[in-house]
């Protein structure tokens, strides 16, 4: 037993040292990480208001540097817009999750062997609340890597929605995305007559063909604009491209 005492004493000392060390070390370390008065460059002290008067120009990016904006945002979406009474434009993005879902269900090979298609559903005059009803649809085969498309519908005053899908080799269609609804504008005077406001024929005679853009050749022609002249008067009507 007597031999034990030095051991016990030694252990106690080690423990004590550990406890003390545990308590003291952080205190010892603290001064090293404590905030220090910042080194002021030998010249003038920083003035309180200086920043407000002349804000520090953070070099966010250099002139001429190519700005990066992502092409994909990691979401599933398909947006369709009307370009004019006859044409629509759609763009879309299929997320990696959606892609994996497809691959899990149909196999990796199916993605490569299937065709990317757009279905254009004509929903003219149908109730907005039932987006899945349609008169008919038109199917368009797309380039494999296309992520936007101009679509000729040729139908003024009509409504549509689109679907992006893939057509499998066995003819099955797999829908990936559904777009918003879109309407094409009218391209002529309406045939709908309001009886309380019967149209006056004489007025329409002098308006004749509505020229919007076509007859009002603009002062600033394309040639002139291409000559490096600044585009003031920027929303010039009837601008010829």
């Amino acid at each position, binding site marked *: 037993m007597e031999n034990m005492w030095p051991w016990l004493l030694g252990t106690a000392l080690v423990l004590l040292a550990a406890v003390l060390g545990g308590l003291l070390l952080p205190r010892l370390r603290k001064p090293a990480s404590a905030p220090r008065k910042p080194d002021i460059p030998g010249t003038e002290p920083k003035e309180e208001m200086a920043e407000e008067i002349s804000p520090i120009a953070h070099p966010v990016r250099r002139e001429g540097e190519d700005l990066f904006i992502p092409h994909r945002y990691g979401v599933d979406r398909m947006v369709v817009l009307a*370009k004019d009474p006859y044409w629509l434009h759609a763009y879309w993005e299929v997320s990696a999750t959606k892609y994996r879902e497809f691959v899990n269900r149909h196999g990796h090979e199916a993605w490569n062997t299937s065709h990317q298609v757009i279905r254009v559903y004509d929903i003219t005059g149908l109730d907005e609340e039932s987006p899945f009803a349609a008169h008919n649809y038109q199917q368009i085969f797309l380039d494999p890597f296309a992520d936007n498309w101009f679509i000729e519908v040729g139908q003024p005053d009509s409504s549509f929605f689109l679907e992006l899908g893939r057509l499998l080799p066995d003819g099955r269609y797999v829908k990936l995305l559904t777009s918003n609804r879109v309407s094409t*504008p009218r391209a002529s005077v309406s045939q709908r007559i309001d009886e309380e406001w019967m149209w006056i024929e004489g007025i329409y005679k002098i308006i004749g063909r509505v020229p919007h*853009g076509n007859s009002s050749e603009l*002062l600033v022609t394309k040639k002139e604009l291409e000559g490096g002249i600044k585009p*003031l008067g*920027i929303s010039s009507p009837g601008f010829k491209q």
Partner: protein
Amino acid sequence: MAKGYLSFVLHAHLPYVRHPECEKYLEEKWFYEAVTETYIPMIDVFDRLVWDNIPFRLTFSVSPPLLSMLTDPLLQERYVRHLEKLMELSHKEEARTYGSPFHQAALMYKEKFRRAYEIFVHQNQCNLAKALKRLQNQGRLEITTCAATHGFLPLMMVNRQAVRAQVETAVHLHQKHFDCSPNGIWLPECGYTQGVDEILKEYGLKFFFTDSHGVLFAYHRPRFGIFAPVYCPSGVAAFGRDVESSKQVWSADEGYPGDPDYREFYRDIGYDLDHEYIKEYIHPDGIRTHTGMKYHRITGKVDLADKQPYYPEWARNKAEIHAANFMFNREKQIEYLSALMERPPLIVAPYDAELFGHWWFEGPMWLEFLIRKIATSKTLQLVTPSDYLRMHKCNQITKPCPSTWGNAGYNEVWLNEKNHWIYRHLHMAADRMNELADMFPQAEGNLRRALNQAGRELLLAQSSDWAFIISTGTMVSYAVKRTKEHIANFLRLYNDIKYCRIDEGFVSHLEWQNNIFPDIDYRSWRTREGEYQSAIC
């Protein structure tokens, strides 16, 4: 009482081209030139008419980016410096052209710049918005607003909050500078699509303008064609542009501005004179630019080199003849129409303000002659849309046709194979801004600053000018740069806000660089109850 009305509408707009980081931007010059050549001469004309006690009513649309630049101290200060340089050049030119056929024109510019300085610095303390406000208070101008950054609304409607924010921010800025709410709005590019009017109504706006077919192709065939406004089902009135009066001014072949006696835009001493002589007055890097001093007349369809000297007096005579011709044609139009209609017909004649003075140098002079002549007419009366709606409250209700005043009349100038790529970014940014506004109903401090700046960046990216410039193929790199820059700034702010790592330095820098709309409120993008369906599935 007159047999019919003429509503003359001038739409003044420039994109936000303020570059605090550098004074060399060519694009900032657009602003200076428009101030010297269009805005000051217009104000001069209006003030003179008021002084001579000539009654007139005109609609003047000031876009918020332009209003912001007109009221910006940095640009005001830079403009004064710019004008002083021009005055210095005009003095040199007076001596240089002595005895030559260009001397008369040189003297005209000297006087013009001196007068511009007097109007800008002494009469309006460098703030032209004051002059417009004064003219509104004097009952001469009806000032309308426009979308916040001239965003092209028809292609923005996939997210109604984005359109709301454009309108709300614009209306607030208008109230701040003109001490009253706008009654009407100039839809950027006359871009209308269904649903836009409902948003206008929320902000108390009572009318907007469309191109001719916007009203003419309405859901029900309008009784009076374009010679009376129609009400949308929301109760907001749509005024359609008159074809004939537009053509007389706009058309390159038939229009007045192409007259041989008028000033030729493309012969400028900034290009013509010896580099050593002119270098102080063009771009500091030696790039030749317009100085605004142009000594030749259009002459006819001849080469630029064969243009003949400009004589101010000849041009002035032509402007008077053309004003008389314009009035004569309108009177004939009114006489024909008033025989058919049971109410006085209304002719709506909208133009880009920058056409007058900048492209068509004699435009302001022509307008002055026209207004003086109309004041004596028994057939014609100048009215604003608000005047008309007060006098004729009952109008046909129908849905206007989605349309714009761009080439072919629809969206193709702003959506084509060259610029379609911007919409995937603009729509995504608008959806994300909407998400942020819903996430933080009450933000304070740096968070609020970051959210507001995100709103500014989004609005600036949405300017219809960028899509237009990309379409036209001139200055494309600037338009692409601006679009990408604002989108990139927005996306960085979005991520910083969302992941709680706002970099105050970055926010301060952007607040300094893109300082438009100091009172912007990010909550303009919040979702209103009972609506909104995101384009994101």
